[in-house]
């Protein structure tokens, strides 16, 4: 079953390259909906029957490569499936426009490749395989980011790609150190046999640095705003909602499966927490002072990703298991709701650009009148980002705050409180422009109905996920990682 999640998008990618015109869009939509259904079925299966682990080619763990689907991977797979399906639907009218037509072939095949590789990243169970998949993700993401063809976007894509490549190299060196210590590449075997030692410390350090370079944590955030700000709107949605989550997911796997017995993680965790805190405040502040909608959303990604890194000190230095679980769930929840909200925001920004030709905030004046659905989408996604009830963002931040207070690391509480205020600042900055009466006829071009709907559906999902917290918590606590029942805590 998990195999299909990789096979279907890759087949669709080949078809999208060969076919033309309407057939290509049909193949892409078919591939997207099949992948979506396969993800949903897999999620249902894992929810009911527990984590799945399969060996590819009939070769078992120390030698062969496996795919493993547990609660954590299923949640990220579902996020990918929902965002992927909506972005695909959005892109059919988007890439049938006059200017975008020649790009359609490259976009569709690269995007399907990216989807397949993201799926296989979320199913990864082998450290070297993780490296190959990371490279596949980086190349296809950078190629997508460069599709706009402007000098700024090419520069941004190359900057992203060089950072990602350096990150991959650090990761691969870490793989070497792990292999030198444990003599195996399987994540779960390393986790149960690895232990401590200077080699593992080196591996942990290299892999962590490599992955936070890719997920744009505070000192390595420099590539993100231009890359996400300059790409085509659906590409920005994919990059910020899914690609960043991919490297974050791998970081979780590395820390909590590969290095689960290691005492090293405890010492390093506070550093990540501090960096996360800085990222929340700095990213949100930068978002406030931007004047272009897409740049605001891109800087906001830095801030929102910062929350995720609070997970490490909270989980690893807290004594009480219940609060560990709370923090763990909160951050994964935050990742999912941020992914949905951010994708929706970027798609809405794409609508705005299509309507007015620019994403300058001033051009947004009076869009509440001409593009009511897009305005509504911006508001809904903004609610989730700010963390107002009953959105997914609210659940995440509420649980986060609770576990911070319970763990006694009060300085971390600055993140949800200050971050929330700053987030409210830039969301209101966007929304206030929408209701200012602007010059007549500023917004003239009509936006395809489907494109507005796709963005809205994602925003609604980011709100609705707040009502389905129980299932997510169940997946994250009872369905984690078959190799070590009970996950990382005793």
């Amino acid at each position: 079953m998990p195999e299909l999640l990789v096979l279907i998008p890759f087949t669709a990618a080949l078809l999208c390259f060969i076919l033309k015109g309407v057939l290509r869009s049909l193949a892409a939509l078919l591939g997207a909906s099949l992948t979506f259904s396969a993800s949903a079925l897999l999620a249902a299966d894992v929810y009911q029957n527990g984590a799945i682990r399969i060996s590819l080619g009939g070769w078992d763990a120390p030698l062969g490569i496996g795919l493993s689907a547990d609660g954590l991977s299923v949640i990220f797979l579902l996020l990918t499936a929902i965002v992927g399906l909506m972005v695909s639907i959005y892109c059919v009218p988007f890439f049938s426009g006059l200017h975008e037509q020649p790009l359609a072939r490259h976009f569709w095949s690269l995007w399907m490749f990216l989807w397949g590789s993201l799926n296989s990243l979320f199913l990864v169970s082998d450290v070297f395989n993780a490296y190959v998949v990371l490279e596949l993700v980086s190349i296809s993401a950078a190629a997508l980011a460069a599709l706009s063809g402007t000098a700024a976007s090419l520069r941004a894509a190359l900057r992203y790609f060089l950072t990602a490549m350096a990150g991959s190299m650090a990761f691969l060196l870490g793989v070497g150190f792990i292999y030198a210590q444990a003599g195996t590449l399987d994540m779960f075997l390393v986790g149960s046999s690895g232990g401590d030692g200077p080699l593992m410390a080196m591996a942990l350090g290299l892999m962590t640095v490599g992955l936070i370079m890719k997920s744009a944590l505070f000192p390595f955030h420099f590539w993100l705003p231009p890359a996400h700000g300059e790409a085509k709107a659906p590409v920005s949605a994919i990059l910020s909602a899914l690609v960043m989550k991919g490297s974050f997911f791998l970081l979780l796997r590395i820390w909590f499966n590969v290095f689960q017995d290691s005492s090293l993680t405890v010492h390093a965790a506070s550093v990540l927490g501090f960096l996360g805190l800085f990222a929340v405040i700095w990213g949100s502040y930068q978002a406030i002072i931007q004047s272009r909608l897409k740049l605001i959303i891109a800087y906001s990604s830095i801030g929102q990703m910062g929350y995720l890194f609070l997970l490490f000190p909270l989980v690893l230095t807290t004594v009480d298991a219940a609060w560990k679980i709370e923090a763990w769930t909160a951050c994964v929840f935050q990742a999912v709701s941020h992914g949905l909200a951010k994708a929706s925001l970027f798609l809405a920004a794409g609508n705005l650009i299509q309507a007015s030709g620019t994403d300058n905030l001033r051009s947004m004046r009076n869009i509440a009148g001409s593009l009511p659905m897009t305005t509504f989408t911006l508001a809904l996604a903004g609610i989730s980002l700010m963390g107002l009830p009953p959105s997914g963002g609210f659940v995440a931040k509420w649980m986060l705050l609770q576990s911070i207070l319970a763990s006694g690391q009060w300085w971390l509480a600055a993140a949800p409180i200050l971050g929330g205020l700053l987030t409210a600042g830039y969301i209101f900055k966007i929304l206030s422009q929408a209701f200012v009466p602007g010059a007549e006829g500023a917004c003239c071009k009509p936006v395809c109905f489907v494109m507005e709907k796709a963005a809205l559906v994602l925003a609604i999902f980011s709100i609705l996920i707040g009502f389905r917290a129980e299932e997510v918590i169940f997946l994250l606590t009872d369905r984690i990682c078959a190799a070590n029942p009970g996950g990382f805590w005793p």
Partner: protein
Amino acid sequence: MNSLLIYSITATSLFTIGLMGLAAHPNLIRKIISLNIMAGGVFLFLISLAYHPDDPGVDPVPQAMVLTGIVVTISATAFALCLARRITEITGSSRLEDKPEDTDS
């Protein structure tokens, strides 16, 4: 002092030198070359782990990993070089430094 040690220390030095070049050079080609040096270091480290001079022979798994890695690296290099050349074609500059473009007004 044995071969494993010599080659793995060489490898880590190469990695660091490459990293330094990547961070220090403004020119795009030089950055990409530095990435290749980093990759060479990583591969050398993996192979030095695979090497056992006498008894069981050479470990094929790191060898396969490095072969995979070489092909991945050359694809990434070609892609990055293409991006770099396109940037030079459009802007006339082969650097990555920011020229803040005023898109506000």
